[in-house]
């Protein structure tokens, strides 16, 4: 097991290096000049040249790449060309927002997905099963932005049940400690603010969770049906075990494995989906920040934030694989 983890970690290094080269090449080989983006169209040639020197853009590409890697190794991810703030600091203040949203979406997806999947599997080929199938089909086919806007219209604009956008009512003025709104409101000892933050979280979490919900529903249904047809399940029933016990001990324990794998695989997709969800709901997280960086042509923010995103993505996938190996004793570490 230890060897397996080390081998997977080592295997991630070339991927990260490759990724850094690709991103570096993207920023430096393609049209568009960061200095122009910083100084604007009317800067004199002399100012442009001096800024190029400061940013190291006058050096040969390979040297620039090594300098960039050296910076990365020291934890310096560069500065925004728009407001000159360090990228890493900006990322860290926004990342909790994305994590909060992703966890909430995952809870929605797992909670409803597994319930619906089990429900459908318990009554196969009935109208319940059909309804669940339709829900999961729609979940996969409705883009996040269409679902998000529709939910916004019905539940916020029409019915006024939930807030349209943002992470919390700005008038509540919660002091930032962890940047996790739910945690910060509790730390401030303001239950009414906690409820407010929770209400802001509902719609984005449903919108973001819809696709994984559909996928988890499908897998749970298929997996439970698969196991339910096994001989040992028939044996368990034949020897007179209660349906509850058959379900809990004989079916679900064996049906879990594919479901957990798929749940793990969804985390990466959720991080990607957060980009769109945060944009719709004006959610102050990393995704919205990247989209803004793109429209501002904020080169270093784009380069570094995608690198961090990919790094997290790799770590999550690695954790999923290791967790899977841990859960499934039958897996071979070869």
């Amino acid at each position, binding site marked *: 097991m230890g060897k397996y983890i080390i081998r997977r970690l080592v295997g991630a290094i*070339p*991927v*990260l290096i*490759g*990724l850094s080269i*690709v991103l570096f090449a*993207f*920023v430096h080989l*393609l*049209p*568009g000049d960061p200095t122009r983006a910083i100084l604007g169209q009317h800067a004199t040639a002399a100012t442009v040249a001096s800024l190029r020197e400061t940013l190291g853009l006058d050096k040969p590409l390979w040297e620039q790449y090594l300098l960039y890697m050296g910076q990365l190794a020291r934890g310096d991810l560069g500065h925004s060309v728009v407001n000159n703030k360090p990228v890493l600091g900006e990322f860290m203040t926004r990342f909790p927002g994305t994590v909060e949203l992703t966890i909430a979406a995952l809870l929605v997806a797992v909670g409803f997905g597994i319930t619906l999947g089990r429900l459908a599997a318990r009554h196969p080929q009935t109208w319940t099963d059909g309804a669940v199938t339709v829900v999961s*089909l*729609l979940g*996969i*086919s*409705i*883009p*996040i*932005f*269409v679902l998000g*806007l*529709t939910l*916004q*219209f019905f539940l916020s*604009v029409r019915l006024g049940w939930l807030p349209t956008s943002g992470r919390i009512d700005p008038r509540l003025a919660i002091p930032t400690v962890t940047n996790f709104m739910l945690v910060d409101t509790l730390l401030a000892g303001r239950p009414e603010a906690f409820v407010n933050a929770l209400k802001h979280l509902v719609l984005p979490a449903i919108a973001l969770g819809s696709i994984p919900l559909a996928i988890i529903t499908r897998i749970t249904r298929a997996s439970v049906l698969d196991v339910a047809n096994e001989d040992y399940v028939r044996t368990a029933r034949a020897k007179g075990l209660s349906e509850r016990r058959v379900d809990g001990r004989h079916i679900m324990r064996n049906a879990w494995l594919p479901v957990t794998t798929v749940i793990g695989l969804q985390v*990466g*997709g959720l*991080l*990607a*989906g957060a*980009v*769109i969800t945060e*944009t*719709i709901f004006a959610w102050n997280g990393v995704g919205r920040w*990247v*989209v803004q960086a*793109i*429209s501002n*042509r904020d080169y270093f923010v*784009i380069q570094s934030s*995608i690198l961090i*995103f*990919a790094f997290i*993505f*790799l770590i999550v996938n690695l954790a999923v694989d290791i967790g899977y190996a841990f859960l499934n004793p039958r897996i071979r570490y070869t």
Partner: protein
Amino acid sequence: MTAPSISIPGRVEARHSRGLWRDAGRRLLHHGPALVGLALISLFLLAAVLAPLIAPFGPIEGKLVDRLQPPTGGHLFGTDLQGRDEFSRILFGAQVSLQVGVVSVFMGLVMGGLIGATAGTFGGRVDAALMRVVDVLLAIPGILLAIAIVAWLGRGLPQIMLAVAMTNVPLFARLLRGSLLALREADFVVAARSLGASRLRLLMRHMLPNALTPVIVAATLALATAIIDVAGLGFLGLGPPDPRTAEWGTMLTDSTRFLRAAPYLIFFPGLAIVITAVGFNLFGDGLRESLDPRLKR
């Protein structure tokens, strides 16, 4: 006393040799959901092809005095901020989605297919190196990769196609590689190899035809995702360079400010995207089940 019945493999073989595709086609015709999917896809194709003939107005034709009109007889789906007919724009939008969706999936299929076929045929170091490239692509979450590509290459239909294609490359590369690696040791491939078939002949005649089934299914399902991704890029403001272009995602993002006043500007383009995606998803699933009768719904 009757003689024990002996099954003759040859005869069984003969009865089953109607061909994979004919068998699959027959099953597909009896597959309800797949037929519904096919109908929805046809609706989408008809909208795209017949848009210039059946659309009551041009895609960029509108009078400001007519703006933000709710759905009526004159404007079936209402009008947008510039007074353009929403129904006509949705029909023309199907052209963009169809074009970008099909081209991007095809590009992804070719690029991913080449990588996967090379890796799966040669194996060993070539395989390891190519799969690391795929891992790099996989390390960037789909839509973010597409956003990055469009952000750097600039807005334009070719850029969007390439961006969405790139998100599909890892999928097709891994799929084809996996099937080919499994087939390398299949008896009929070993037999052909031992008869002296060249590597190219082995790949083209024996391995590829048997590896294509999952790829075709994946391509159908990828069309649904591609159309959603294209609309997603449009929604994020990275759609076609001409902001007047009737593109479903761009139409949605233009309308978000009027959620209260003109919700129909969200519903109709949204519905168009959903119907198309449902169509490809239903048909793709049906195709998968028809091609592999062991899969039960």
